[in-house]
């Protein structure tokens, strides 16, 4: 505990460097802008800033992304409460309650205050959990061999599918396609080419960052240009009223449950803030003494998913930093930023560069505090951003994406690949194929293959080793149980048809 506190103080001093603070504020601003604009998600924004990070040090680069991550999780609720337009899928449950609180109960200003407070509380508390739970977890993780790591990656892959709420088969196909794309290029064990067809384009493999740029950003722009959106709303009376301590005390149960659910779901690879928000909302309704209030302006129904959405960021960051496995699509882009700097997140990073890790932890905590101030002060300004024509946004996004893809290797071929995946992303959206599992498959696939093959070499091709070793056995059985539970749980969901969302 003492070591953690000392490291955290060192990290805090480092994160208070002017450039780092500037990056946090800048990141929060970009994240909030992206968050309030429907169609422009927080993940899009993180992808868009990638080219800016190429020539930055890793610390400000990650803090910039952390700012976007946290700001983006919250800001979509502003337009949800004010205009019934959630900025991101993760803000949909908050919109259900927040908009009714605003329009029917006249509690819009308080709802905005509760949302920003719960979001900051969720992020800050999950940041503390991440800071203090990571070191003991790392000690445990350092004992892992390739067998245990394979089991963890396997759990990540199965959870991507198990948590897909719209169509489990489509999510699975998307993930497997991602895993296949990851096999293109040089085989890491034999050094031979796989599926390159003699083309230089494929010989170096398909970089997941380029695929992400294409699928998430370009695909989204094509989707935007096909739909014409008319938003005519007034923002004159917008203000944020901070909740009094008694308001927060009354919501303590909802906030605590949102925090727990968000942090755990964030830690699970593949599950992001949207799933955390929906699960938290559903759970809150189940445990509520007044479930009939849900859907007609429940403050608990607003507080729980808002806390969970931002708490998931801490969980996802913990998964990324301790295991090197991204807990969400946003964390996957951060993994890309780490890799571009030649840094591999994981247990060894805590040993080789503890200052970097604790600067990120401290920066994460600071981000949530600054977000609270920005959320209170600028809610009106962010709400006005809805007036920016989407045509302008879309065109600039394509330009930024092309720079991001080009700058990876200063090669125009990468821009072509990004654009091709952009069209693929658009088609996937139209076919109801979620794009997030493909990215996770692309990232986790090579890890799974590597750990699997090393395990087979070490254990004479004995497949049972994954089940006979205690830790990996528990994780593998847990994975199967998780999938089975999800499949069984789907039946009542299908019958009730109450809540729906996609894995994105």
């Amino acid at each position, binding site marked *: 505990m003492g070591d953690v506190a000392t490291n955290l103080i060192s990290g805090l001093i480092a994160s208070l460097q002017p450039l780092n603070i500037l990056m946090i504020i800048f990141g929060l601003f970009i994240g909030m802008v992206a968050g309030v604009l429907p169609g422009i998600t927080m993940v899009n924004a993180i992808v868009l800033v990638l080219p800016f990070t190429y020539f930055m040090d890793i610390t400000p680069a990650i803090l910039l992304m952390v700012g976007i991550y946290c700001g983006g999780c919250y800001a979509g609720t502003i337009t949800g409460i004010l205009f*019934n337009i959630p900025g991101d899928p993760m803000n949909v449950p908050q919109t259900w309650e927040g908009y009714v609180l605003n329009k029917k109960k006249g509690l819009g200003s308080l709802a905005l205050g509760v949302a920003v407070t719960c979001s900051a509380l969720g992020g800050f508390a999950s940041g503390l959990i991440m800071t203090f739970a990571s070191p003991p977890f790392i000690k445990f993780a350092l004992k892992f061999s390739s067998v245990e790591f394979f089991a963890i990656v396997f759990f990540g892959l199965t959870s991507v599918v198990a948590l897909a709420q719209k169509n489990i088969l489509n999510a699975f196909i998307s993930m497997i396609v991602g895993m296949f794309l990851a096999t293109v290029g040089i085989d890491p064990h034999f050094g031979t080419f796989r599926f390159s067809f003699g083309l230089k384009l494929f010989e170096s493999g398909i970089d997941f960052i380029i695929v992400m740029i294409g699928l998430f950003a370009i695909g989204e722009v094509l989707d935007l240009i096909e*739909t014409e959106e008319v938003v005519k709303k007034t923002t004159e009376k917008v203000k944020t009223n901070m909740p009094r301590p008694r308001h927060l005390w009354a919501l303590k149960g909802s906030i605590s449950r949102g925090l727990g659910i968000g942090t755990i779901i964030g830690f699970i690879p593949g599950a992001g803030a949207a799933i955390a928000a929906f699960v938290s909302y559903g759970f809150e309704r189940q445990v509520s003494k007044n479930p009939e209030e849900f859907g007609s302006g429940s403050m608990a129904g607003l507080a729980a998913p808002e806390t969970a959405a931002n708490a998931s960021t801490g969980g996802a960051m913990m998964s990324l930093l301790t295991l090197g496995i991204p807990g969400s699509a946003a964390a996957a882009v951060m993994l890309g930023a780490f890799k571009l700097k030649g840094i591999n997140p994981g247990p060894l990073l805590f040993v080789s560069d503890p200052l970097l890790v604790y600067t990120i932890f401290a920066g994460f905590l600071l981000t949530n505090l600054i977000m609270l101030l920005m959320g209170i002060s600028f809610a009106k300004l962010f709400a006005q951003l809805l007036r920016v*024509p989407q045509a302008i946004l879309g065109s600039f996004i394509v330009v930024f994406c092309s720079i991001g893809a080009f700058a990876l290797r200063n090669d125009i071929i990468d821009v072509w690949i990004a654009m091709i995946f*952009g069209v693929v992303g658009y088609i996937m959206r139209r076919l*109801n194929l979620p794009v997030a599992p493909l990215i996770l498959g692309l990232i986790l696939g090579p890890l799974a293959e590597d750990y699997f093959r090393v395990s087979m070499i070490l254990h004479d091709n004995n497949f049972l080793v994954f089940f006979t070793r205690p830790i990996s056995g528990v994780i593998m059985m847990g994975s199967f149980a998780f999938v089975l539970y999800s499949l069984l749980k789907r039946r009542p969901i*299908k019958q009730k048809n109450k809540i729906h969302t996609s894995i994105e």
Partner: protein
Amino acid sequence: MSNLRSNQSLIIKISWPILVSLLCIFLYINAGSIQAPGRLPGQIGPAAWPRAILITLIFCSLLKIILDLRRGRHGSMPEEGTGESVGEVEVIETLRSRKILVIAILLVFGFVLAIDVLGFFLGCLLFLWTFTYLGGWMKKIYLSLITTLGSLFITFLFVKWVYIPLPKGRFFFEDITIAIYKALGIF
């Protein structure tokens, strides 16, 4: 009419898994040509993992076809997990012409070609103007102002500050780009 539409929808639904299956079969056969120099007896080769993935993908695609065909036969059943939502979203969204989408895709690819041939600045300027215009923003003076300033700012930002050697273009377009860079103080 609705029958025809649902049949068309079913054809689209099952056509992509069929294409994926065929592609997987081709790739599975191609995996046989992957070399494994220095492979020890009993060691898993480089083709084993992708082949396992491809088999899984073929199986899933076939399952998808069967499920969609069954759904089609029993009438259009709702997608799993969809249904009435607790809240409603009030954004006024209308689907625009498919022609606009096709033009947008062509513009996106044209943009890549343009930055390669015309150079980044000119390609960017041309793309921003046409794409924004296509997106429904018709105020030509503001549009020209925003796209010109935007292109200048982005070029200056990434070339001068972030040191990304954005393409200068080919033929005489390279000279034009260099002249613009000199005017911006980049060179």
